[in-house]
């Protein structure tokens, strides 16, 4: 960081800061030079921090009233909804908050894909982000089990059974995960314990994610390296904080719309039926944010193959920085990649859609085509396009189009204006 050394004004502050430089840290965070052309797709980092804290705070309160026991869990959730003061509000914020969290994280991830934020020198930020995403999925899955409704129980049964596909030791691993010979009380209690633990692991990774971000600084819509600080940057506070705050408020309006006026529309009605190991629901479906992976899982006729592809779909993202061979970061200057980016978005949406449908007929065909294309995008299209694509000229700086002499600044500018 090319910032000036911070020296506290007061004697006490200096004494403290020499021993624990918290004030220097605060100064770094407020002065942190940020590209001034960040658009609203860059506000989702702050929104995600808000989502995590909301889940942690509402979760702590819910855990005070929830009972992790197979016979009592369902009733304790109803107790929260009926007898705890504003329990319904806290629970609906928590359950819809999970959906909002994933909505935000998907936008955040696709923003990174579009503007090439995962590329050098930001690979570690990207990888930590993916680890956060994996932990989010684990936390969300286990959290969905806790109300002990029908979808909780059967979702847990389907997902934990995936591990039985591992050759030789699969069945033993599944039994070990359950703590019983089927999904039962021991499964519920350990899921509760882990569900409480994981958000704090995520919080730790978020600190690392931001730390790693502050080494090279933010990417930006133009995708070029910028001098920091310079006339291309603004201090994080108040410029970025106020913009993040505005975007967060708009996000909260949508969030509140779900919580107060459609609190159950993103859930499944079967989860208001208490878990019953003797009755299998007609269609077992995960929550919407896991549907694309569910579609990939079911597109393979072989169980082990399906599991490998499903996990592969996530793990392939870890090597994305090395699969993408293009030197240009932002898709704004990559006419071919830009097209493929949108095809990938549509592909993931289609996978999500067929994930909610029965795995038969046209849905199965779509799931298979979608799965093949998903892997094709990362393994073939990205490396090849990076070599063959003729990228458009990139400006030399954000604020100085004249120096670059590039006609394409207009495009970057157009991009900025549209936000």
């Amino acid at each position: 960081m090319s910032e000036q050394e911070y020296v506290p004004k007061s004697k006490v502050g200096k004494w403290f800061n020499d021993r624990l430089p918290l004030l220097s840290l605060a100064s770094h965070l407020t002065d942190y030079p940020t590209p001034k052309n960040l658009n609203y797709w860059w506000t989702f980092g702050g929104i995600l921090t808000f989502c995590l804290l909301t889940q942690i705070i509402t979760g702590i309160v819910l855990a005070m009233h929830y009972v992790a026991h197979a016979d009592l869990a369902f009733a304790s959730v109803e107790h929260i909804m009926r007898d705890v003061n504003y329990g319904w509000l806290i629970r609906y914020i928590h359950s819809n908050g999970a959906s909002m969290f994933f909505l935000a994280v998907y936008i955040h991830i696709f923003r990174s894909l579009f503007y090439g934020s995962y590329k050098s020198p930001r690979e570690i930020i990207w990888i930590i982000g993916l680890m956060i995403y994996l932990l989010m999925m684990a936390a969300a899955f286990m959290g969905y089990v806790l109300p002990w409704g029908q979808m909780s129980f059967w979702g847990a049964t389907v997902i934990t059974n995936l591990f039985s596909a591992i050759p030789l030791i699969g069945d033993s691993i599944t039994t070990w995960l359950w703590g019983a010979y089927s999904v039962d009380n021991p499964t519920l209690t350990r899921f509760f314990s882990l569900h409480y633990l994981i958000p704090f692991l995520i919080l730790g990774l978020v600190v690392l994610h931001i730390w790693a971000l502050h080494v090279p600084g933010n990417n930006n819509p133009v995708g070029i390296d910028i001098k920091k600080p310079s006339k291309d940057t603004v201090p994080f506070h108040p410029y970025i904080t106020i913009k993040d705050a505005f975007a967060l408020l708009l996000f909260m309006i949508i969030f509140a719309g779900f919580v107060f006026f459609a609190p159950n529309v993103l859930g499944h009605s079967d989860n208001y039926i208490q878990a019953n190991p003797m009755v299998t629901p007609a269609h077992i479906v995960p929550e919407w944010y896991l549907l694309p992976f569910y579609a990939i899982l079911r597109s393979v006729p072989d169980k082990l193959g399906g599991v490998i592809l499903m996990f592969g779909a996530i793990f392939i993202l870890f090597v994305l920085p090395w699969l993408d061979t293009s030197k240009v970061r932002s898709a704004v200057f990559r006419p071919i990649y830009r097209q493929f980016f949108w095809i990938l978005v549509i592909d993931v949406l289609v996978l999500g859609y067929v994930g909610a449908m029965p795995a038969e007929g046209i849905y199965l065909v779509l799931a298979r085509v979608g799965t093949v294309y998903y892997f094709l995008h990362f393994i073939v299209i990205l490396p090849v396009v990076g070599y063959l694509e003729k990228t458009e000229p990139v400006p030399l700086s954000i604020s100085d189009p004249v120096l670059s002499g590039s006609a394409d600044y207009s495009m970057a500018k157009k991009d900025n204006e549209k936000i």
Partner: protein
Amino acid sequence: MKKFKLFFCILLSLTIFNTLKSAEQIDPIKVDWSFKGLLGKFDRSSLQRGYQVYNEVCASCHSMQYLSYRNLGEPGGPEFSEEEVKAIAAGFEVTDGPDAQGEMFTRPGRPSDKFVSPYPNVNAAAAANGGAYPPDMSVLVKARKGGANYIYSVLVGYEDPPPGVTLDEGVYYNKYMIGNKIKMPNNLSDGLVDYADGTEATVDQMAKDVTTFLSWAAEPELESRHKTGVKVILYLVLLSILVFLSMKKIWSRVNPEI
């Protein structure tokens, strides 16, 4: 950027579309419930009539184990008076104990008691109903696709089976039920209950009243949720306008076009 916004809309609409998509049977009748919409409220007298239908017709088989008698007097619900709630509760025999001698005993119900269930356990309930357990109705409206519309439709959806459909003993034909076969007989008939407020007790009226009551039972917080929601969103909109103006002002120092 436009494409990004489009993507956002598609994602939202897709997820909503997915969850709303209903199963194979015919769509339930759409009723214009007073509690739908942003400012929806329950019809107080319909809730009271609905409780009467539940108590006189449904309660002989269906439990509502998560409700307490006191809920009947709480704001946003049927809002029976304190005396009425006490009288309703006292009309039930509640098993309590053990007493000092270690014996269980029965006493008249109190408002703080949970609704007394008609059967001691699920197996007893199933055994008394041809093997089909009458589901607990506390959250039934939330536990069925189509919600209140579906419950109402099933209540009025009984008809003679179409030719070619044979039904076993104790199974009935219902055009809205999944699979069209239901073990609950058609329990509603015109004039079955005697409404205190003089409303004519037609099958349709009773079905609407009891569905309203069940909707409240499933979401007793609905009215305060709607009221709070309007306030919260108004507050957020006002605050975001203020923050937007501040943002414009702050950013005007570097770049007038944010």
